[in-house]
């Protein structure tokens, strides 16, 4: 079970949080300007890396804030935690 450091509450067990999947996915719009392929990509296409994954988490059973996490999918090491609206950080 991961130990996740909520930016607002500090280090808490993973079961206080809910994962929202891949981060930094822009919602295309307006609807009339979006083709089927682009909308399908937004709905369904996700990265599946063996390594660094940038994902969204929410402190569901805590402060309720969303934030982003850079996590290694192999070692589960959390390399960065940053705000929901911040850009993807440069990581080695």
């Amino acid at each position, binding site marked *: 079970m991961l130990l996740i450091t909520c930016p607002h509450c500090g280090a808490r067990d993973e079961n206080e949080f809910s994962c929202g999947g891949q981060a930094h996915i822009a919602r295309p719009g307006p609807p009339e300007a979006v083709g089927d392929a682009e909308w399908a990509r937004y*709905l369904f296409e996700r990265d599946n890396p063996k390594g660094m994954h940038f994902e969204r988490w929410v402190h569901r059973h805590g402060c309720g804030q969303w934030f982003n996490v850079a996590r290694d999918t192999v070692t*589960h090491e959390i390399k960065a935690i940053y705000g929901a609206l911040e850009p993807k950080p440069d990581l080695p």
Partner: protein
Amino acid sequence: MSGFRLAQGGAIDRDRRLHFRFNGELLMGFSGDTLASALLANGVSTIARSFKYHRRRGIYAAGAEEPNAIVTIGQGDRASPNLKATQVPLYDGLVATSVNCWPSVEFDLGALASLVGRFLPAGFYYKTFMRPDWHLFEPWIRRAAGLGQAPRVDDADRYDHAHAHCDVLVVGAGPSGLAAALAASRSGARVILADDQPGFGGRLLSDGGAIDDAPAQAWLDTAQAELGAAGHVTLLKRTNVFGYYDHNLLGAYEEIALPGSPSGDSRPAGRLWHIRAGRVVLATGAFERPLVFGANDLPGVMLASAVRSYVARYAVAPGQRAIVATNNDDAYRTALALLDAGVEIACIVDARSGVESALVRAVRARGVKISSGSHLGRALGSRYVTGAEIQRLGGGTRRIDADVIAVSGGWNPAVHLFCQSGGRLAFDAQRAAFVPSVSVQAERSAGASAGRFALGAALEQGSMAGFWAAKRETSSVAVAHATDIAETPLTPLWEIKGGGKAWVDLQSDVTADDVRLAVRENYVSVEHLKRYTTLGMASDQGKTSNVNGLAILAAATGREIASVGTTRFRPPYDPIPIGAVAGRKRGALYHPRLTLPMRDWHEANGAVFEDYGSWSRPAAYPRGRETLDDAIQREARHVRLAVGIFDGSPLGKIEVEGPDAAIFVDRLYVGAMSTLPVGRVRYGLMLTEHGIVTDDGVCARLAPERFLVGTSSAAASRMAAVMEEWLQGEWPNLRVFATPVTHQWDVITLTGPRARDLIAALGTDIDLGKAAFPHMAWRAGRIAGVSARVLRVSFTGELSYEINVAVRAAAELWARIVAAGQAFDLMPFGVESLMTLRIEKGYVHVGSETDGTSVPDDIGMGGAIARKASDFIGRRSLLRAEATRADRNQLVGLIPEDRTARLQAGAHLLGEGARDGSEGFVTSACWSPTLDHAVALGLLRRGRTRKGERVIVFDDGREIPARVVEPCFIDSKGARLDV
């Protein structure tokens, strides 16, 4: 084999005799014994029958690696099957029975399996018992499979959970673990030290030795005293650290009560620990490797280290005349221990030649015959060991009499937790063992589990690991020392051939030939070997068989052991009860329930409660000898005739407030909400981004910048979370707050033709007139003196007022309503009655009339979309081809042609005539009290174009003709609401 109790020695308490039963026979032991040591002392040799061939099995080891001595402890609801006798502490009154044998372990009919053994090699069930139909054989193969019997009653034991945090977790309290714990403790770190034994000391308890120039026991006593007195150290005994998870979270199971004990013991059976550690020291020790030779499964063949454990710790000699077979120096310690106990050594069979190390010379000096360069080819005896056949390197064999054979093939570090943590192993050729190599998490191994088998080396490495764990670079703190004697390295010896069937995995009954059979079948990956042969899959999890097995696999496939590798290690390291994982979350605590503020009133008035999502709510209020169905019909009928009272508190309520509130609700709903006037209420649908209906509810505009969004009871917290996700992630610039207030408001629904009259009789400052307070509007004021917000919305189709009051005022208002209601024949009704009423009206229930594919048009609500220009969640997905397909399932009503027939939700709908398979299904059904026949809603392909058609409702084999009608059976024009 004839084990016996030694007259002196051992850590048992000879003043406390204990009586116990084994297979009904009354036997005697001492406090401090394990069941295994007591059985050995009583001369019991056959403990169980093996899994497949039903061969006799005796005690093999002294700890968690025991493959043979599987027993059931206790009886009835306290029975614990499949425990290892080596891990069961003896207590007075203990009852133990053998497993996998009938009628008894001595005379077992299953032994006939040995006669057909050649038809039962590894994986036999993939080839045999197939024709004519494998189902014929399945029942008795299933009965034959497995070891113990699972109890047939609920586990009466209680299990607790505990959560702990520490700076340093030390797993294992042998010499290296204790050294690590002392170093960390003296450095000021908060330490948890856990060991699976009832007493700390690990191998010190059986091997003794000298630490800091004094007997090891003295050091052990001082170390325990120091750690026990330290307030920042937690000591856990009888604790199996079974799993290493992410971020240094480890799971441990602490046994508290005695296994299988009668109900007199009121303690919980055990405690499951969730331990989050800053750093971990793994001092988990090592397991001795068996030798693989002919008939090596006979009772009387034991691990050499286990033999000296029984002598030193329990004062039990496993036999009177021993053979020690080895490829290393360590087994000579067993020879010395046996000699000191007065047991005769028939000979030492050492695979190596020309060894002149200190241990070997010490044994030779005692006059023991050492056969160098020799292998033990075969154990002799039918029910237990009576001797052995020794192979000489130069050729030829020799027979030697003995009643116990102590074997040692070297040592395997216990790397289970290390591997679970993600660490990678390396194969140490000199030790012929897998050792920890690359750590991934903040942990270090020390002592035997790191391949440092010698005492001095183990203590030093343990101390260093302890300082590292406590984040101390240097240590001016004293550490323990021991001087190690030089030992001659081992010669790897994975298999001795020529002696007949040789066992690799004793518990799974897997032989060396089975490994080669797997290779012939091309199962050459170590993971395939495991699953094809079941090697390593029993309750000992291959602790004495995995490495031998993969080494034989390597030889059979011409590969290096390092490249074969090990199978994946998974928790639990040693079995734990499933009840321990559940803890207290059983029975009433399994599923947390939300209870209504007015629950006591409902209960007092005869409510029958059901679970609706997370809520416990009244289904109906049966009176007298009514059935639930009778009550539902009575309540629903009464609502249409007079007035009913319903507890609608679980309905979701979310206040959306701010300058951009109107923009936000427009993005949330399918229909326009920003145009809703203050004081009015509008029904709305909410979609997922995939265009699927996710919830519905009414929205009330409380003020220009304030909306009360209603959700279904089940979706209340989910929709609030959805709102937050969109506001925080996608539309952070919207100036709006979404605040869930579901649990702040109690909702008292009064519905029926007399509802208005009842409220008027209660006294209110709200103008209840039709024009002043129309349907789909809300008003605030006082009812019976209590401040309330009232919404005129209806889920029953009758005149309806949902009275929202603060929860703290609910009881008072409810009581006043019920008192005044007597004059109006007010009747409480439950959720089932509500469902009957709404089905009659064709009001959809998201999750019944909709599923994971439903779009608004399916349930007849596609019209609002064309009238709305702005974007909303899911809008783009409604333009997909799938969402606009002409032959989608659409909401219809159904009435059976036979007016006495009943319809069931879930029944399929088939077209008349040509049957192309299911064309839809019944989504909701009820017996209409108003019409006195069954009515149903359903989703039917192209349903809206098929009004008047006859379809077949296919319900579990029955075919019921029904007519497709409008999905509304009562008052389709809504006249009953237009009052």
